[in-house]
């Protein structure tokens, strides 16, 4: 009878031991020739990877070896080769994400060092980017502040969420609970097609039609406002919210809804008291994913905003729109060089981390709620 209270390190050692045993079993079971082919494949792809990372022209050689050995393996030992290739492909997903993280962080290091600030005698790299609100890439003192862009992203995201969350959840309720089958068959594809409209097209319409109209309506100097960029981005994030929330609402068991209706409640009462609370984790995840989508939206913002990085005056002035974290990258990539380019990478890092945290947060909420419902999935 195994011990109940195994410590974490014991379990880890067990797990590793199990892996080693399985690997040894695999090696024993497999034909040595097949093993050789797999070894050659693995070695050559690793060499190719190293060569690629090192920007070497000779990378093609190990890659060709890999292709050749894979071809041989496929013909002679298909099952083992297939397993190996599938494993390599799985590892590649982790690898790609890792490379993204490494490279965008790496590129931003120089400017982070440049923008150091001293606080209580301690020099903190990058702090000055968040303490002062000036972005000036041209005239000294050259400053790369992230504050105006963060302000812009926050403004746009708040307005976009105010549009996408209520309208999206309401549309999801409609699709999953209210709509008769024929109506649903029209509205559901409609929402999905709305998701397909490219952001540059939204941006183009916003730039050509919406911004001039807004400038006229609010008598602003020049065109470009956080209010309307927010509304457009909200409409773009809407389909995300609708589809994820609708999945969550549809998965509430019919027995629960029947139980409520059989007691003499209206459909709306059942929806608000039973269905929505039961699907709450999924619906919150939907809203969070919509927010993440809004934060990452680039082209509509780039085209519709003014492109001068500064804080609006006053801060809540939604009738003017300057720059977001996404738009500054898209707008300046062409002329930017050196430190300015690195500053764009810093914006990219902020975006990446924020959206990752939101996405992980959404998953965590769903996981917690699953546990709370007494283990019911």
């Amino acid at each position, binding site marked *: 009878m195994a011990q109940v209270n195994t410590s974490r390190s014991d379990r880890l050692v067990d797990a590793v031991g199990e892996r080693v045993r399985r690997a040894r079993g695999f090696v024993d079971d497999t034909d040595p020739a097949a093993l050789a082919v797999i070894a050659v494949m693995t070695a050559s792809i690793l060499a190719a990877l190293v060569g*690629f990372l090192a*920007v070497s*022209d*000779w*990378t*093609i050689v190990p890659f060709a070896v890999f292709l050749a050995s894979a071809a041989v393996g496929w013909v002679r030992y298909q*099952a083992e080769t297939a*397993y190996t290739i*599938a494993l*390599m*492909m799985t590892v590649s997903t982790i690898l790609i*994400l890792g490379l*993204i993280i490494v*490279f965008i962080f*790496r*590129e931003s290091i120089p400017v982070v060092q440049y923008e150091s600030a001293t606080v209580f005698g301690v020099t903190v790299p990058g702090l000055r980017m968040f303490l002062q609100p000036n972005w000036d890439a041209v005239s000294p003192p050259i400053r790369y502040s992230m504050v105006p862009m963060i302000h812009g992203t926050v403004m746009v995201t708040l307005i976009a969420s105010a549009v996408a969350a209520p309208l999206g959840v*309401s549309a999801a309720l*409609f699709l999953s609970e209210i709509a008769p089958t024929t109506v649903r068959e*029209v509205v559901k594809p*409609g929402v*999905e*097609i709305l*998701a*397909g*409209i*490219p*952001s*540059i*097209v939204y941006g183009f*319409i916003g730039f*050509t039609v919406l911004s001039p109209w807004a400038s*006229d*309506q*609010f*008598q*602003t*100097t020049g065109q470009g406002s956080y209010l309307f960029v927010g509304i457009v981005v909200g409409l773009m994030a*809407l389909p995300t919210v609708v589809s994820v929330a609708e999945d969550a609402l549809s998965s509430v068991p019919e027995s629960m809804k029947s139980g409520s209706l059989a007691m003499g409640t*209206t*459909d*709306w*009462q059942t929806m608000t008291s039973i269905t929505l609370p039961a699907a709450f984790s999924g619906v919150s995840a939907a809203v969070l*994913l919509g927010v*993440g989508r809004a934060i*990452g939206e*680039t082209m509509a913002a780039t*085209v519709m905003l003014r492109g001068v990085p500064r804080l609006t005056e006053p801060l809540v*002035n939604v009738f*003017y729109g300057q720059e977001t974290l996404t738009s500054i*990258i*898209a707008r300046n*990539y062409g002329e930017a060089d050196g430190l300015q380019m690195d500053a764009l*990478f810093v914006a*990219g890092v902020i*975006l*990446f981390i924020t*959206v*990752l945290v939101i*996405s*992980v947060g959404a998953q965590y909420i769903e996981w917690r709620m699953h546990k709370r419902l007494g283990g019911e999935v």
Partner: protein
Amino acid sequence: MAGARPTDTQLVEDETTEADATAALAIGVSATLFALAVAAMFGRITLTGTLAGVQTVTLLGGLLTVLGLTVIALGAGSRFGYVESTPDPSAGLIAGVGAAVPWALIGGSVASETLGLGTGGGVVGAVVVGGVALAATVLPREDVGSTGPLGALLVVTGLVFSTGVIGPTWVWELGWEQQAAITADFLIPVATLFTTLYGGWASAKAYGGFGARGRHMGAYVLVYLNALSIVAFLFILVAYVVVQGVPGLLTGFELGLGTGPETTIFGVSVALPVSIPFVMNGVALLNDFQGVLPAIVGTFWLVIGAVLLAVPLGVGAAVFLTEYAERGRFTQVVEVATNGLWSTPSIVFGLFGFAFLIPRFGNGKSLLSGMITLGFMLLPLVVITSREAMLSVPDEYRDASAALGVSKWQTIRSVVLPAALPGVVTGVILGVGRIAGETAPILLTMAGGTFVPGSQTVDVIGSFQFTSAPPFVANPALLEATSALPYQLFALITAGVGLGSNVSDPNAFRWATALVLLVVVLSFYAIGIVTRYYFRRRLKHT
């Protein structure tokens, strides 16, 4: 005691009463007002013009006042027993907050502007008036609380508009450093829109006799309106792009034998019977008409390259995760990585391509870098949909195959993959639709060559060559900075130049580009949705 309850609710209701008809009429009026407000916002009707013989502003104001009085009447009718209804003791906090918000806005603006009390006075005014509205909604019985404050809101707004207190020339300078003002052109339609929504909601509640049923009706009206607005919005958006884009698309359009360009089909040189210069030409000095053919070809190759990269990788990873791996640390890490990739913003992919791929592929923007970047973007979607497709293949299939003595890989190859294929294909099509419309990733990795002649479209297949030095295989076409449809549109918006004097209408050219992009992307989506529907129906019938 069972059955001894003195119920005041009937099991079978009476026929439709006048009250029901009044409430329905009120809903109709609010729908009309909604449509008028939307029309005014889009400039289809002007505030100073006339509508049905009356000045538009006066008409809007008048209708609002009538609606408000009707709402109040419906509440009073229920309260004083003229109408059968089942109101709750209170309208509830949600209705209270809903009524308080517009009144607080009015109170705040009146206090700070009309009475000149400044921001502090504005806040106080907002709190006071909002508080009164809240109390007036939640303290009385539901039929009075739901209708009183909202009806009054409508009446006040209507009177303000129809008597000209806020007329078509009204302006409120906000006095900010970056100047902005709220004009009547904006305020009147928007205020009409929101107050009429409140009016419709209150009328629907009255129609349902208040109480749980009334709230059910009110909620359904709003939810239906929301859903239909979204569909209408989509329709108007696409229709607008089509209407604006077709003239540009069809400039120089010719139909007839021999009008089109020459192509070789099966070794025979044939002239196509139709000529659409916009999609068949590039940009060149000697062109009769300019076109976006290079961009179309660029998008085509981008998609092919991305699919060739992402589909094998993604399907392979999905196969490993569902068939070979056991749930544990490794699969969890892969899932986190996949979700991380899926949620990464597109511009970050562009930055990555810029930092990682460009130095390694010719040190400049290239089609190949664009392909690989988009492939990375497509990868997580392929992994997720392929996994779903494979997980939905019932275990019975696998068990049956194993029971026949077939090896695991053979089972995957002959049973699981074919069964999962429809799901994978649908996922790929939808994913392609998404990446075909992406600008940000290709902006930093590929974009260029926007105004090149049609003869210079990138010729990928024909450019493969062997070289004597490593890397021994080269394809200059892949390493060129090329254009694609989304980037083309972006360049036209931001640069706008380079079209030359041959383009009679640059604006139409832009709209036509947008239209072509929209058609390409939406076609993928439409095909994806249809295939998914078709495959799901096939699955249901088996």
